[in-house]
């Protein structure tokens, strides 16, 4: 491993100061990193701090909790919280089971596996807005699902899936669209994770008498744990941010937290409250990340590696 000399002298010397050596040593790695570090500080760090401050400020700049009160006072807010949590709680398990099943199907190396993988991975690159619109064409009153139902004679005029008077159905359509869209991400992660597992383990388990389900439970899943952990954290945090799906499918009838920040920010022109809602999302994400890290911590199998 070539260790460039920059590190020997500790953190990059302050501009102007020269290390008292015969040769001038460029802290090359730090130079390469500086643009990205600066960029991220400006575009991640600053807005983050700014947002936190904004949530607690009144228009004159003083500290206030009024924004939070305003936010909590809206019944739509609590609806959005409930919907977001519910959506996430329902979609995540479905996605993971589905993605795992798909990965196992691919792992069995069927014919045309390459084609299947392509089709199954396509939703990966589809934004949640586009996903919502795609399923809109299916679920809308004059859409394809109702067309099929009517053609098959199962219904007279079809079901009004997206009717706001039918909250369960609204919820289900959003669930379907979200599962459809975001399962690909988990699929890729699981497949990548499976590929790294040497097939010797599974073969040894086979010879030792394990059935398919026993192998899955005792060998495959434990070895997939690190991949699954990362996937869970990323997916859950992303799930909290879903909003365009619901807007595309249901308009304003299914409030979600990020949708509310959008409303507050753009339509109601109240950035302070929007920041407050955004911080709620941030808080939820962090709590969830900590819970996952705790719950899925590896047992003390030193390094956990082979």
């Amino acid at each position, binding site marked *: 491993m*070539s260790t*460039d000399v*920059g*590190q020997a002298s*500790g*953190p990059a010397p302050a501009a102007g100061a020269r290390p008292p050596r015969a040769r001038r040593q460029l802290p090359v*790695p*730090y130079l390469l*990193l500086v643009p*990205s*570090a600066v*960029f*991220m500080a400006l*575009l991640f760090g600053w*807005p*983050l701090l*700014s*947002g936190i401050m*904004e949530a607690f400020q009144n228009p004159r700049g003083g500290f206030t909790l009024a924004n939070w009160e305003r936010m909590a006072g809206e019944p739509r807010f609590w609806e959005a919280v409930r919907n977001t949590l519910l959506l996430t709680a329902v979609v995540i398990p479905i996605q993971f089971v589905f993605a795992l099943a798909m990965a196992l199907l691919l792992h*069995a190396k*069927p014919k*045309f596996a*390459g084609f*299947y*993988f*392509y089709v199954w991975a*396509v*939703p990966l*690159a589809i*934004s*949640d*807005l*586009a996903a919502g*619109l*795609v399923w*809109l064409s*299916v679920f809308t009153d*004059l859409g*394809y699902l*109702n*067309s099929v139902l*009517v*053609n098959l004679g199962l219904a007279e005029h079809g079901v009004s899936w997206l009717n706001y008077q039918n909250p369960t159905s609204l919820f289900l359509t959003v669930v379907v669209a979200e599962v*459809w869209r975001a399962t690909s991400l988990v699929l890729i992660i699981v497949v990548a994770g499976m*590929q790294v597992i040497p097939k010797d383990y599974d073969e040894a388990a086979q010879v030792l008498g394990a059935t398919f389900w026993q192998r899955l439970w005792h060998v495959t899943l434990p070895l997939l744990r690190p*991949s699954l952990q990362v*996937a869970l954290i990323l997916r859950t945090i992303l799930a*909290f*941010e879903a909003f*365009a799906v619901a*807007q*595309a499918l249901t308009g*304003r009838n299914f409030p979600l937290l*990020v949708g509310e920040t*959008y409303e507050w920010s*753009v339509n109601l022109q109240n*950035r302070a409250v929007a*920041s407050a809602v*955004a911080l709620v999302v*941030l808080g939820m994400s962090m709590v969830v990340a900590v819970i996952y890290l705790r719950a899925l911590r590896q047992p003390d199998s030193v390094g956990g590696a082979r």
Partner: protein
Amino acid sequence: MTTVASRPIRVADVELPPVDTAPLRRLRRRRALLQVACIAVTLFMGFPVYLITLAAFSSRQTLNAFPKSLLPSAISTETLNAFLSSTGVLPAFLNSVAIGIGTLALALLIGAPAGYAIARFVFRGRESYQLLLLMTRALPIVVLSIPLAQVFLTAGLYDSVLAVVLVHAALSLPTTILITASVFVSVPRDVEEAAQLFGCTRFEAFRRVVVPMALPGIAAAAIFTFVLSWNEVLAAAVLTLNNRTLPAQVLTSLSDSPLAFRFAGGFALVVPALLFILLMRRYLLNMWGSTIR
């Protein structure tokens, strides 16, 4: 002619039971079921894309009809034309393209050197830097976009292509850095050092030797960034008013637009995805594997 004989492998001349083909039949049946399951999943994943394409290429008549046929009856570009000529759509489309390209250029410009640094050097803070990158990926964009709108307003950048490029580049930067890092790691160090031995400066060695070998991986990172930017809805919608991107344009006109508009919009947003996955499917697993580690 020489007569030779090899020592034959002697096996006992015993009566052996017939070959039991039942397990083989079970196996074949299971593989058939496997195909059926795969086809079912493929239908679920692929059919909606087919439907939106169908919708986008249906005439207004067909779209208003009910029940709709699942088969293409009369392919018409009426809906798509209407969509593209709607106010703001074409400019939004061009904006998205420009922003996408700008984002990938900026992200690579800033991110590739950082990726190179992580790949080739061992320095204090390397681990923490990588941890920081992973953490920023977990940060919800919503938390950044709202304050950034204010920041850009004061900076006079609000509602500009540049603003969105900056945000998108920031969003894709962590992933770009991690992907390019793994790409550079896969380029053997010896080749670079050999070039330096033969008289290249460090930068020349990088340019002549490393870049060609790393190009496919970097191309993958570039396309990934482009698609990320193309699909991004929230920040684009929050940060722009008149210079919208395509998703932002579609989003903001959702409530006012006819169904046909929305279907065509959905299709327009989906097309790059299809192309992207087609091009990138070999790299997909490598890319995700590298960013997870």
